């Protein structure tokens, strides 16, 4: 991925992650606005209701005052103008002076202002002046002058009551005849007889011009005067104001609950979005880890040189890695879903391959793996080493088989080549040994033959002479015969050596073997001024070995010993061959007094093609060791305490 894309994606992602928060925020703002709007609308409505209620109440009071005044005027006509006290009038009066009407007393005066009567009547204790003070007189005069009713100022009466009066002038045919005075209790007027719903909703109070509360419907103060309405109380006037305050209306639980639940839900929403975000991040991280892990595994599988192949329980291919595809030459698409026989099976080995396949599916496959010949798409054959293992899924179920395949063609070819090489080298070495042997033997053969020829020429010379000494000639012919037999012996030995070329394993008398081997080399050794001494332990058990091979080893070792002593003085030119039984092995020691073997040479001594001789091939000791190992024995060497080297060939004793 290129960086710009990453940036773009992350910007988009950031936007995507921010959208829920923005939405939640917007939602909360809208909800808050809605609530505020609803509340203010409610308040407006409440206020409008309040005002209309107050107007209604004021109107109600006015109406009551007006009606009382009308009644007073009517009764005044009866008792002052007509001057008759009818029972109906008294009933009307009594009807009038009631708490519901706010009137506590009605008094009537004559034109001169003298008290003519009162209801309830004024008691002895009560001072008249209290009712008819200076103020009252002034009011009366004013009412008479104005010819209409006049309300007086509020004053305090006994018992902490606040009262005011209304003076209603009464006129008859002969003019002013007196006045009716209604004494109102401010408290009763205002508080009495308010409808229940009004009293429940509002606190009603009367304030004087200074704003002091004179009278209140209830002693309980409203909590807030936010919802209150004040208006002039006229009549009675005189700066009085009527104040109506709404009680703190009962808390509107529904709204609170609504807002609360909205806030709660909003909170939950934010919290859940946060949780979601955290979960999302965790998931994202896990996904990232999973992806990188998966990519890593994929890269691992892809870069592996081992071919991987998964099969389900029916043997159907479910997965192959690139190495497998490379090996068989088919693409993954061509292989996945295939059932046996697979396209990469070698048709020549179809049955065997099928058998192996069935064995794998049965679970009988060898854990060491098996080798099989397969065929690439190109038709080229190759050898594969396959390991099969059960495929266990995450739930622990056995879902199929996992095979890993190695192309071992090159390895097998190399092994085969190495084996052939070894064989060839063995053969070559054998040929060389035989060649050398033949050369030596030919040389040796020369001796008797030359002798025979010389005897023969001598005989011919004699025969050409006139006199023949028969006994002399007979003696010479005897000698010729001896030499011919000598030649025959040599030829027989060569024949023996050549004839035993087939490798075989037979019980072998090692001492006999050594003597024969030495017999082969003896001629050579005498020529070279070397001696071969033997020190053979008697009654040794036999070993199972190929006599020719063992002979070859001994010949080789003795020859090496002689080569090592090439520069020795004649007295130190002896190869000592000894045999000994040591536990379960027979040990043949070939000791020389030669130059010895230094450490570096010793390390590389058995390496193929390592030689210290100008004409050597460097195969002799290598082959000797192979032969020793072929017989489950060992070829080693140690330093000779007398100078030189001792080679040891150990062979296991043949157990009967």
């Amino acid at each position: 991925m290129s960086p710009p894309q990453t940036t773009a994606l992350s910007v988009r992602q950031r936007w995507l992650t921010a959208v829920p928060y923005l939405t939640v925020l917007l939602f909360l703002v809208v909800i808050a606005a809605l609530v505020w709007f609803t509340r203010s609308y409610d308040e407006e409505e409440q206020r409008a209701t309040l005002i209309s209620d107050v107007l209604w109440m004021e109107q109600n009071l006015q109406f009551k005052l007006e009606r009382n005044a009308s009644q007073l005027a009517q009764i005044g006509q009866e008792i002052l103008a007509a001057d008759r006290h009818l029972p109906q009038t008294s009933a009307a009066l009594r009807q009038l002076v009631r708490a519901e009407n706010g009137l506590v007393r009605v008094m009537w005066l004559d034109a001169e202002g003298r008290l003519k009567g009162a209801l309830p009547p004024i008691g002895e204790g009560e001072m008249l002046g209290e009712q008819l003070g200076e103020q009252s007189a002034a009011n009366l005069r004013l009412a008479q002058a104005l010819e209409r009713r006049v309300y007086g100022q509020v004053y305090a009466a006994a018992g902490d009551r606040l009262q005011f009066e209304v003076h209603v002038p009464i006129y008859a045919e002969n003019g002013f005849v007196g006045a009716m005075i209604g004494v109102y209790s401010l408290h009763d007027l205002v508080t009495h007889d308010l409808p229940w719903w009004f009293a429940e909703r509002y606190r009603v109070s009367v304030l004087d011009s200074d704003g002091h509360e004179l009278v209140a419907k209830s002693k309980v103060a409203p909590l807030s005067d936010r919802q209150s309405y004040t208006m002039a109380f006229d009549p009675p006037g005189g700066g009085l104001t009527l104040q109506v305050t709404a009680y703190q209306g009962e808390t509107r639980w529904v709204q609170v609950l609504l807002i609360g639940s909205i806030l709660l839900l909003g909170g939950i929403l934010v919290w859940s979005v946060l949780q979601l975000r955290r979960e999302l991040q965790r998931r994202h991280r896990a996904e990232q880890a999973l992806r990188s892990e998966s990519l890593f595994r994929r890269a691992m599988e892809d870069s592996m040189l081992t071919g991987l192949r998964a099969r389900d329980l029916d043997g159907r291919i479910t997965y192959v890695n690139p190495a497998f595809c490379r090996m068989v030459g088919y693409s993954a698409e061509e292989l996945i879903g295939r059932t046996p026989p697979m396209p990469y099976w070698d048709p020549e080995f179809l049955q065997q391959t099928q058998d192996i396949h069935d064995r794998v599916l049965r679970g009988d496959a060898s854990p060491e793996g098996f080798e099989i010949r397969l065929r690439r798409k190109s038709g080229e054959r190759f050898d594969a080493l396959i390991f099969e293992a059960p495929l266990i899924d995450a739930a622990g179920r056995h879902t199929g088989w996992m095979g890993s395949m190695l192309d071992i063609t090159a390895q097998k070819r190399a092994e085969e080549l190495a084996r052939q090489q070894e064989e060839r080298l063995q053969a070559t070495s054998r040929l060389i040994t035989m060649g050398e042997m033949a050369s030596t033997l030919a040389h040796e053969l020369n001796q008797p033959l030359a002798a025979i020829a010389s005897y023969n020429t001598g005989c011919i010379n004699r025969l050409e002479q006139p006199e023949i000494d028969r006994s002399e000639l007979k003696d010479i012919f005897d000698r010729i015969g001896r030499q011919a037999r000598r030649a025959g012996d040599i030829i027989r030995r060569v024949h023996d050596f050549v004839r035993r070329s087939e490798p075989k394993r037979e019980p072998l008398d090692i001492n006999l073997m050594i003597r024969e081997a030495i017999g082969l080399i003896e001629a050579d050794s005498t020529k070279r001024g070397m001696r071969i001494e033997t020190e053979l332990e008697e009654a040794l058990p036999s070993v199972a070995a190929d006599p020719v091979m063992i002979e070859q080893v001994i010949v080789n070792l003795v020859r090496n010993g002689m080569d090592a002593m090439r520069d020795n003085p004649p007295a130190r030119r002896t190869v000592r061959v000894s045999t000994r039984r040591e536990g379960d092995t027979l040990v043949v020691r070939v000791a020389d007094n030669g130059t010895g073997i230094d450490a570096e040479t010793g390390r590389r001594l058995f390496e193929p093609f390592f030689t210290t001789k100008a004409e050597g091939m460097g195969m002799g000791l290598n082959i000797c060791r192979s032969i020793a190992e072929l017989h489950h024995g060992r070829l080693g060497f140690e330093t000779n305490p007398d100078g030189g080297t001792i080679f040891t060939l150990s062979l296991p004793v043949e157990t009967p």
Partner: protein
Amino acid sequence: MTQPCAHIIDDDEAIRDALQWLFKTRDVACATWPSAENFLAALQPGWRGCVVLDIRMEGMSGLECFDVLRQRGNQLPVIFITGHGDVPMAVAALKKGAFDFIEKPFNDSDLVDIVTRALEIDANNHRAETTRETVETRLALLTAREQEVMELILAGKFNKVIADDLCISMRTVEAHRSKVFEKMEVRSAVELAQLVNLVRNRPPH
């Protein structure tokens, strides 16, 4: 062992025996030695004849033996008998003054012929050696003046010239000349020249 004979040195008894028989049938005197060491131990300076040497032998090899012979100043002709593998060695030996080499298997008559020739050569050498010794003995008898005169005679000068050269009289020259001829046992200047040349220009061996 004053008689000239062929010394056969070979470590193979049969070969020695067979060759001895062969030489006997051709009337060639021979002596056999089982090893070079044996032969060298017995060798005397006056021995005449030739040596037949096998190259590959136990102990001292034929070539070593040849070297020892020459180091000792022995000039006996040496014939090498060699196997196929030894030919280069034999050739090298030949270049160092060996008489001949013969490769195995050999034609026995050829071998006897070669040996016979070698014996003749040795005999000739021996004779030449003897003559040389005689001449040298005679030369030793001459006085200084006689030697001077002889050199001038050998240079082919006449008596008169010799007299002038030596500032002596013709008669004196005559006297010296007859003395030289007498002592050298020759009758002519030509004979004298031949005799002296034998000593001074040794023929190659």
